[in-house]
């Protein structure tokens, strides 16, 4: 056939070629930052000779030295060790809660987009209502009611972010729900759920992936804020937010105890953001425009 088309002839792909290479490097930097944090969190027990939790009163609040590169905290624990291990809690909570929020939010959003009509209206109103309650208040309430175990925090964060994800996914799924292949499936007489699973979900995958990355960065911040407020990780867990809370009063005496976790946190979040940006551009999802959804 004469109209044999190779991908190169597709005008879209040629246009995208040049920026893609550069973006890959930004994404790459972001992924490296995230990957390193994860790797360090996993390997941390073997990276320094110290325990992250064992106290030693004799060396409390020491400045940096050859033995303790970043000094020690008020219990004489090695700041470097705690900083290296400090990403575990945030990463775990962020991963679990983001996954739950994104999975549930995606389903709700896709159902709303497909359903249109009154079901869509009801879902949208409920999601809006949940969104209208400040996240911090919601978290406070949930944590006060259910205590502050890991799973409570995970679920609380998920509850807070489900509506935001649902809203974004609904927006992305809307045009898909009106597309020819969905119409074709409807004309074939297929039911709602198979259509959502077979036709709609695969096509909001990009949005969902970007959403995942972006939510993750917010969740990491939120989790650290929770730890900071005393609702997150329990001592002696080495957690960045908790470390900041524990050490911030001594900021002028032993600044590294506070600075190290903040910098680590910032590196992780910057990494996640860079990765999300790169991903978004590659996937053609406008990330900035939906920020703070």
């Amino acid at each position, binding site marked *: *056939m*004469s*109209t*044999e*088309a190779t*991908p190169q*002839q*597709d*005008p879209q792909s*040629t246009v995208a*070629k*040049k920026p893609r*290479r550069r973006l890959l490097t930004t994404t790459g930097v972001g992924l490296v930052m995230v990957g390193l944090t994860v790797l360090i969190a996993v390997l941390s027990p073997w990276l320094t000779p110290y325990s992250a939790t064992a106290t030693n009163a004799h060396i409390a609040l020491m400045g940096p030295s050859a033995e303790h590169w970043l000094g020690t905290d008020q219990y004489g624990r090695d700041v470097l060790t705690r900083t290296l291990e400090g990403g575990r809690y945030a990463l775990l909570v962020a991963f679990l809660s983001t996954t739950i929020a994104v999975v549930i939010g995606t389903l709700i959003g896709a159902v709303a987009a497909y359903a249109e009509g009154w079901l869509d209206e009801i879902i949208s109103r409920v999601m809006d209502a949940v969104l209208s309650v400040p996240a911090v208040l919601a978290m406070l309430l949930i944590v006060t009611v259910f205590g502050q175990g890991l799973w409570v925090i995970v679920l609380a964060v998920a509850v807070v972010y489900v509506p935001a994800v649902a809203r974004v996914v609904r927006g992305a799924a809307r045009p898909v729900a009106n*597309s*020819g*292949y969905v*119409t*074709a*499936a*409807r*004309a*074939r*007489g*297929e039911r709602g759920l198979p259509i959502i699973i*077979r*036709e709609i979900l*695969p*096509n909001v*995958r990009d949005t969902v992936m970007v959403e995942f990355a972006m939510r993750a960065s917010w969740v990491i911040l939120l989790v650290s804020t929770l730890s900071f407020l005393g609702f997150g990780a329990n001592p002696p867990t080495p957690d960045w937010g908790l470390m900041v809370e524990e050490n911030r009063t001594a900021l002028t005496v032993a600044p590294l105890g506070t600075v190290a976790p903040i910098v680590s946190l910032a590196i992780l979040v910057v990494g996640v953001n860079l990765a999300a940006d790169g991903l978004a551009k590659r996937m053609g999802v406008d990330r900035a425009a939906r920020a703070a959804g």
Partner: protein
Amino acid sequence: MSTQPTEQTETPVVEVEGLSISYSAGTRMVPVTREVSFTLAAGETVALVGESGSGKTTVATSLLGALRPGSQIVNGAVRIEGEDVFALDAEKLRALRGGRVALVAQNAGHALTPSMRVGTQIAEALAAHGLDSSAEKVQQLGRRVHLDDPELLRRYPHELSGGQQQRVAIAMAIAAEPKVLVLDEPTTALDVITQRAILDLIAELRAELGVAVVLVSHDLGVVAEIADTSLVMQDGDVVETGPTAEVLSAPAHEYTRKLVAAAPKLKTGGAASTSTEPGSVEPLPATEPVLSCQGLSIRYKRSAPLAVDGFAAEIGEGQTLAVVGQSGSGKSTVAAALAGLLPAERGTISFSTTAGEGEGADLLKPAGKRSLETRRAVQLVFQNADLALNPRRTVGDAIARPLKYFSVAKSRSEIQDRVGALLEEVGLDPSYARRLPAQLSGGQRQRIGIARALAAEPRLLIADEITTALDVSVQAEVLDLLADLQKRRGLSCLFISHDLAVVQRVADHVVVMKDGVVVEQGPVETILTYPQQPYTRQLLEATVHIDAA
């Protein structure tokens, strides 16, 4: 400009000399145009013809000293009245743009700023070149493009029809009385009647203002109508140049020949005006009707007016019924109702699922309530092939789904065989089953859409503007394929189009719609040769002809 030699009548207004433009992809330079040259004198019109992506817009906009970001001139020059536009400083370039060379962009709907009243946008074009931009002057320009009602100029772009938007774009372009007018596909997005009006307006302005016109189009009919000279482009190369009439009647290059051959030609039997001849409205098709609908009325919202009012038609076995009419006349609405995607307010639709059964299933039911057999027997092919295929599923998946769903084939290997056979039937290699839609050209995608519909082994195929988005050459292939399949399988077909030439090529019968109402129907030849209704005549007259040149 004082350094310019005194004016000579022979000096061309536009000189494009060996223009090569490339854009950089990484370290590579990808050529967009190669060695394009032409000249143009005042009052002349040159057309740039070629398929999508051949570089037409790139050449056209270079006349305004504009390049897409990332592109650069590798070679050659563009001179307007002897001045190299790419050597101009910023201020002079600004004066050139809209001053001596004006552009009417490809899609007026997108080219007008949505948040600004159109009158203001015209006034801006005047003010930018230090001209009087009073309301009076704007209205005067409006009248020039036949937007006589000053109220129209106070509207926002979205409150105008496509044709009116195009007029505003033209008014903006001629505001500063440029020497060169660049028209980039000025009528592609318009229906035939509106297209006719715009073409007439261009001709009128050219005569009045004596401007040189650069016309970009892939529609040979349009080119034939207004261009003195034509440049045929393919992949950035000019493959043929010459007076339009010559190029179209005796194309030298193979690519041009293909273009000309593929262009649908409307034969009106040379008697479009003999409409007074008594055209007996043909009796209904002699064959057993597969589909018959009466008094079909459809409304979108309860308070809205009827989108379709009393539609009635029949389709015989193996026959094609075309529905034509300008945009918004209700064609797609009828299709959606037949497919069970829209509820009808009134009327009957009966459909026989198997041959010889007469009164069969009631198509007034929504798709979900119809029997599996009925759903299988009615299949849709969509207008926009890009949107009709799930970009995340392979071609094989798309075709296999109806096979499985309607239990046409059961076992895995059987399904695979059927998919391969269907692909071959629509002229594609079975290996295409593994591809994703993005790896196909537009024409190929449309073939997949057809294969998917055929997989269900339907009796009735509903095709809604299935070739509108395709290039002429591809369009011809798809139409041939459809006709061939129909013959082989004895398919009935409801074919929706606004292009009369296409309709003439594929349909047995035609229904002409206007504002949701059927104004005329009958056998194609009768209707196109002896149109009874003024509207049908208007449609026919508006159609451009490749052999007009």
